[in-house]
C-alpha cells in the first residue's frame, strides 16, 4: 500500500541555521508533491508545490527538492526564525488520483 514517511517527528534547531525536513514515499508514483505548514489549532496552509519533472523549487527562504529515483523530497528553511516553528506536512498526488495524501508531519522548533 502507499506509504508516506516524514522521518522526524520533531526537529529542534538554532535560530539562523538551515532546517531540513525529509519526506519519503513508497508504492507511489506521484506527479506532484506539496508542502504545507500547520500551526496549533489551525488548518494546514499551502507553501510550495513541485512537479515530478522539477528537481528544485524555491520561494523566499524555502527550497524544495524532489528526487523521483530516491522517492524523496527535502524541504529546507534557510536562516530559520522562531516564527518558523510549526508542523510541516508533505502531501502527494498524481495521475487520475487527484486525492492529496499527507504524511504525519514534522514538528519544527526554532530556538532563539
Amino acid at each position, binding site marked *: 500500500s502507499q506509504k508516506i514517511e516524514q522521518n522526524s517527528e520533531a526537529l529542534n534547531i538554532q535560530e539562523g541555521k538551515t532546517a531540513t525536513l525529509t519526506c519519503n514515499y513508497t508504492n507511489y508514483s506521484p506527479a506532484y508533491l506539496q508542502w504545507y505548514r500547520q500551526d496549533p*489549532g489551525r488548518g494546514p496552509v499551502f507553501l510550495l508545490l513541485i512537479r515530478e519533472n522539477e528537481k528544485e523549487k524555491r520561494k523566499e527562504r524555502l527550497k524544495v527538492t524532489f528526487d523521483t529515483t530516491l522517492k524523496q523530497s527535502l524541504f529546507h528553511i534557510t536562516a530559520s526564525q522562531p516564527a518558523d516553528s510549526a508542523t510541516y506536512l508533505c*502531501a502527494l498526488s498524481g495521475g487520475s488520483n487527484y486525492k492529496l495524501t499527507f504524511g504525519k508531519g514534522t514538528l519544527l522548533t526554532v530556538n532563539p
Partner: protein
Amino acid sequence: GAGVSQSPSNKVTEKGKDVELRCDPISGHTALYWYRQSLGQGLEFLIYFQGNSAPDKSGLPSDRFSAERTGGSVSTLTIQRTQQEDSAVYLCASSYQMSANTEAFFGQGTRLTVV
C-alpha cells in the same frame, strides 16, 4: 467569504448521538476534501468530491460516516451513533481545479469530542 468555513468550530456530543459537520468551500472551487486529524497525528483522508463525479469514499472508516455535497458547494459530514474514538479534529479543504497540481485551502476545522 474569503476562505473555507467550517461549523461548528467545537462540538461536544454524547456517545451514541449523531452529529453533522458543515463545510462551506471557497466559491468556485470544484474539489472538496474531508480529513480527520487525531491529537498529534497526521491527516487521515476520509472522502473527496470532485465536480459531478462520484465521490471517492475510500477513506471513510465505517458505515457510520457519510458525507454529501449539495449543488457542488456546501458539504455535510455526518457521523451516526458517535463513539469515543471518533473524537478528533475534522478538517475540510477545497481546491480550484479538478487536477492534482493545485493547492488545497483548509478550513480551521471542527473539534469533535465524544463523551
